């Protein structure tokens, strides 16, 4: 019996850049942090942007580069959404950590080791407002000896008083070019062969999220072998095959409720995620030249409403059926 997963790490971890300079596509923050390495000083920081763009990576890299492996534990506190971060924790844990004095800023073992501690609050947008408020004072009291790194997807969920104390950096979705370069690099290391089509498919389905791209790549490589085609990637990505989307739309055009209902049932029985279906219907509607602008607008409005309902946890079947039924009615209005 094969013992599982020797010491294998998922590729996203294996290829997580260890140094700030290796973080791709986020030039501004890389420049500022490179500077930090020289001057051994930095402001509080706030990193925000969509998933898989390098926020956590950058914060961990700079912390490691500043303190090296020996001091890391005593100088860096990483708290993320997997830790309880209610007010109490903010008050006690952070205070305890920040309260212990640090020795003066002496280079040790080739690391700058500046005389402050770093507190990384990853996924900070899931902290309650109360907890964030409690942080304000903590930040002020310990401002001499601590630097805070806030990391989040949505900057609007960070209260203004905290945000205004930080240097803010937006992490951009990775461009197709940068993404392809990174993927090719990983592909080389792992001995994969990828053609141009596969590369561009990968960039387009992962929409600027490099973590997603790497996960897809690893999945495809493990499932379909080392020469990877565009089809393999679509296969592991959870994208719904275009035929299925088109068939549903054709059923809408047919104007027959029962036919359409059957198609909806089929989509669910096949296990396709309805949220994904909505975004693919959206593409079809936008590109369909037979539709008038007003019709497109009305269908899109319905798509948006259904999407919101799904986020609220509404039933997938009922929402898709409603979208399909309303689309049918909108389409019928052409003939009128």
């Amino acid at each position, binding site marked *: 019996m094969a013992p599982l997963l020797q010491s294998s790490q998922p590729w996203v971890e294996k290829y997580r850049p260890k140094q700030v300079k290796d973080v791709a596509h986020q030039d501004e923050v890389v420049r500022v942090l490179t500077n930090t390495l020289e001057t051994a000083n930095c402001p509080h920081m706030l990193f925000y942007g969509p998933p898989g763009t390098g926020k*956590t990576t950058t914060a961990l890299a700079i912390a490691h580069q500043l303190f090296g492996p020996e001091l890391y534990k005593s100088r860096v506190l990483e708290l993320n959404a997997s830790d309880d971060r209610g007010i109490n924790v903010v008050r006690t844990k952070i205070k305890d950590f920040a309260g212990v004095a640090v020795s003066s800023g002496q280079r040790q073992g080739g690391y700058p080791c500046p005389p402050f501690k770093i507190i990384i609050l990853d996924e900070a947008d899931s902290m309650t407002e109360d907890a964030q408020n409690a942080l304000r004072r903590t930040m002020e009291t310990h401002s001499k000896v601590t630097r805070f790194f806030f990391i989040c997807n949505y900057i609007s969920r960070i209260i203004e008083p905290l945000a205004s104390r930080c240097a803010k950096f937006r992490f951009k979705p990775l461009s197709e070019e940068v993404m392809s370069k990174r993927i090719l690099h990983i592909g080389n290391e792992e001995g994969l062969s990828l053609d141009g089509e596969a590369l561009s498919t990968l960039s387009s389905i992962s929409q600027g999220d490099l973590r997603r791209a790497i996960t897809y790549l690893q999945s495809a490589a493990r499932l379909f072998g080392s020469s990877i085609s565009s089809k393999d990637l679509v296969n592991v990505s959870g994208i719904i095959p275009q035929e299925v989307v088109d068939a549903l739309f054709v059923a809408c055009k047919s104007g027959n409720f029962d036919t359409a209902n059957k198609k909806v049932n089929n989509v669910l029985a096949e296990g396709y995620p309805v949220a994904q279906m909505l975004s693919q219907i959206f593409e079809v509607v936008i590109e369909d030249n037979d539709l008038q602008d007003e019709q497109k607008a009305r269908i899109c409005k319905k798509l948006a409403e259904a999407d919101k309902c799904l986020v609220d946890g509404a039933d997938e079947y009922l929402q898709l059926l409603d979208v399909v039924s309303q689309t049918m009615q909108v389409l019928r209005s052409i003939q009128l």
Partner: protein
Amino acid sequence: MLWVDKYRPKTLDQITVHQDVAQNLKKLVNEQDCPHLLFYGPSGSGKKTLVMALIRQMFGPSADKVKVENKTWKVDAGTRTIDIELTTLSSANHVELTPSDAGFQDRYIVQEIIKEMAKNRPIDSKGKRGHKVLVLNDVDKLSREAQHSLRRTMEKYSSYCRLILCCNSSSRVTEAIRSRCLNVRINGPTEEQIFKVLEYIGKKEGLQLPSGFASRIAEKSNRSLRRAILSFETCRVQQYPFVSNQAIPPMDWEEYITEIASEIMKEQSPKRLFQVRGKLYELLVNCIPPEIILKRLLYELLKKLDAELKHEVCHWAAYYEHRMRLGQKAIFHIEAFVAKFMSIYKTFLISTFG
């Protein structure tokens, strides 16, 4: 033992319905390089079976030795300690649980219990540190907060801990989690596949199947293999030898909803609404999930309606189900739907027949 359990394939090689997926999973394990996995698909499609077989492939027969534990965890929730009761199913190398059972406290399960489990590496008899798999069921029912809490845990302990997540609707799993997993779609088996499984079970049980009988069960199963096997066994209990036109009994609650639907069609009045309420309560008390009731009711009503009305009625079903999600008392919203339906239908009758 019920047939659904008795005939559950134990290894990936025995799996017939999702054979391609099973073989792929086997490859993943043999390559010794397996990312986190997210299985999604309709209920009764065979996710659980695949997951169990996968774990066996990873750890060998020792994975069969599972123990069920019902434990109360003391969790430090800021100012106070709370007790969370949780049932787990575990072997030496894996733990299976349903964190959403804790309802609105699910966040603590993820933050405290799951993290603890992920951190602790199992040690084998030779003192070597092994690997660990956590199976989490119904992740689509986890609150957003709990899902957020899962994210870093998935990254931090990834050198020795793998998560296997299962759910029905992957739309409800946040992007951040989906992008950390290999997503595996498990579709409901086709009627033909279900038919084959039923035939196989029939053979093993030494039963005579009249022609067309198994395929009728498959047809009625709504592409749920579990349901098909259950009703097959029910038929066996009710009448054997089978006769070719033997009735395949619907579930009790479904029959009940069929009745409700015809009552609604017969009379639209406050009095009838009141009677229907009693029946709806009965269903809820018997733990039929409210959205299932609403969907079934819609299904029955649609069968009886003109095309024109169908659009309107399905819209209101979607509308009230959404409200039900946001609200607290399911009965209000189901009843509102019934009232709405009555009003639409009555208006229609009056305008057509005067």
